[in-house]
């Protein structure tokens, strides 16, 4: 397990950077995927690969199903309500997987996955009844590793970033795992955007796996990372000998209220907590204000989700106005100039309109700008002092300076 962990953590940085290049790698056929296609594109080999990929998918889906089944059977808290909602969520996730299988990016995955790795992961599968949830969790992570490791061994050469992209593409299990956990926490709103497995997802799954490894001696359900975090939390309060390594653990210890409630409640209660959370999420009440949670919305250690979504949807001007304005000037990054100076309310003439003295984009007339320069010399918009860049801009509009 430890060796696996090392490998995974080695992969993860590459993966995150590679996926970060385009947010929708997994759903859309990208250039990188096409360039990654097999070196000898004969039809027969391709078909085989497609079949192999499909097989692998099937194997994964089966493993996932086993997981769910075992979760439902191991947690007997209100089985009827949980099972029904879970099966529905499972259904739509299966649909998503099917969709993903049809995506062209997935076909390339077959070229990278080694036969041995595939067989390994298939061999590792066991009947549901004989394995506990804990064991399945182990198996799952091992299988996951086999897929990645296999792709490495197959090529007999160092992993390039593109290949690692394909690797991460090849394993939709990982982000989906993560999603499942989020769904459990009743945060369905985050799942509305499909196929956004961004850097944060990989990083959070990384942190997830690290937590899992550190608590693998417990009998916790490994997939439920919030439960694991809760358990870790209690463990840390109970025995001080245990080294407290992860940052989120430290920060969660800083909240006295939560600590109190956790230490007063038993271990069992703590493990059951996500389950009850899940139920409350089903009821539609998504308040996360209770104590005893692993993460709160404002918690710094909480893994951020979908940060790329906001970045993609927001205009660059809003995300970083200063940089954008500085590099692009008044070509099109800035809002249309106001008709009047916001300081003296005088009408802005054409010279004034083209005058952008500060990188924040705050416009004013030359007259007011001059008056401010004589005074404290700070931009009214951002309170940063006008400096060399303002002078540079002034020289461009020097033709009207005598008038001022």
């Amino acid at each position, binding site marked *: 397990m430890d060796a696996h962990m090392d490998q995974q953590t080695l992969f993860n940085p590459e993966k995150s950077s590679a996926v970060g290049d385009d947010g929708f790698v997994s759903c859309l056929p990208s250039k990188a995927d096409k360039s990654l296609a097999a070196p000898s594109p004969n039809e027969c080999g391709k078909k085989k690969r497609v079949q192999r990929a499909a097989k692998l998918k099937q194997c994964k889906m089966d493993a996932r199903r086993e997981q769910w089944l075992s979760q439902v059977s191991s947690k007997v808290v209100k089985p009827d309500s949980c099972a029904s909602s879970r099966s529905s969520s499972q259904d739509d996730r299966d649909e998503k997987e099917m969709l993903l299988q049809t995506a062209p990016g997935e076909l390339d995955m077959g070229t990278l996955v080694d036969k041995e790795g595939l067989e390994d992961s298939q061999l590792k599968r066991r009947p549901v009844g004989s394995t506990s949830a804990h064991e399945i969790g182990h198996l799952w992570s091992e299988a996951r590793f086999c897929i990645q490791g296999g792709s490495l061994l197959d090529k007999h050469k160092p992993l390039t970033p593109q290949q690692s992209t394909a690797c991460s593409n090849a394993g939709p299990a990982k982000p989906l795992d993560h999603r499942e956990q989020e769904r459990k926490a009743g945060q369905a709103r985050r799942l509305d955007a499909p196929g956004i497995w961004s850097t944060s997802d990989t990083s959070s799954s990384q942190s997830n796996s690290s937590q899992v490894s550190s608590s693998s001696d417990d009998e916790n359900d490994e997939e439920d990372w919030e439960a694991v975090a809760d358990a870790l939390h209690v463990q840390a309060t109970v025995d001080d000998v245990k080294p407290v390594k992860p940052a989120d653990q430290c920060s969660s210890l800083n909240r006295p209220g939560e600590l109190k409630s956790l230490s007063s409640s038993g271990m069992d209660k703590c493990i059951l907590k996500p389950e009850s959370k899940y139920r409350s999420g089903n009821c539609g009440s998504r308040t996360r204000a209770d104590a005893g949670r692993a993460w709160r919305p404002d918690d710094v250690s909480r893994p951020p989700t979908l940060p790329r979504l906001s970045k993609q949807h927001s205009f660059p001007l809003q995300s970083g106005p200063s940089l954008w304005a500085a590099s692009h000037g008044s070509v099109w990054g800035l809002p249309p100039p106001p008709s009047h100076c*916001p300081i003296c309310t005088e009408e802005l003439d054409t010279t004034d309109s083209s005058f952008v003295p500060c990188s924040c984009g705050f416009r004013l007339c030359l007259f007011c700008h001059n008056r401010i320069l004589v005074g404290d010399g700070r931009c009214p918009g951002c309170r940063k002092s006008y400096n060399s860049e303002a002078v540079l801009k002034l020289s461009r509009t020097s033709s009207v300076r005598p008038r001022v």
Partner: protein
Amino acid sequence: MPTSLASRARLFKEYKDVQREKSADTDILLTCDENNIYRWTAHIKGPAETPYQEGIFQLSINVPEQYPLVPPQVRFLTKVFHPNVHFKTGEICLDILKTAWSPAWTLQSVCRAIIALMAHPEADSPLNCDCGNLLRSGDLRGYQSMARMYTRLAASPNVSH
């Protein structure tokens, strides 16, 4: 253009804006002295869920001729128990009225900032030391009851009129 003219033009524009958006912001009532555009009075509503709730506080605003390059002088005319308001003079300790002033601010936005200050007292730079000490010692209840009492006594419309 002389500075007095600039400030006058600016204040006149603000006056027009205030008249136009009177109904938009019911928490702030800005009125200008009929004879002197540099003298304003504001009535602000105490923010909800604070001890100042349901109080109406009167502010006097003195606008200097260099406005908007220098901040207006604002003080409470109504007694208010707040760590950043001098209990006797009504002086307000607010950074945007001093060092952090920006010419882009308006009288309206200054009033909004003062309402925000009422909702978020800053006990570390107190002008009202008693109030600040209450908050710093963690006696939130004591602070709230005092502030509420003074709101009832001084800022309630029924009592003052």
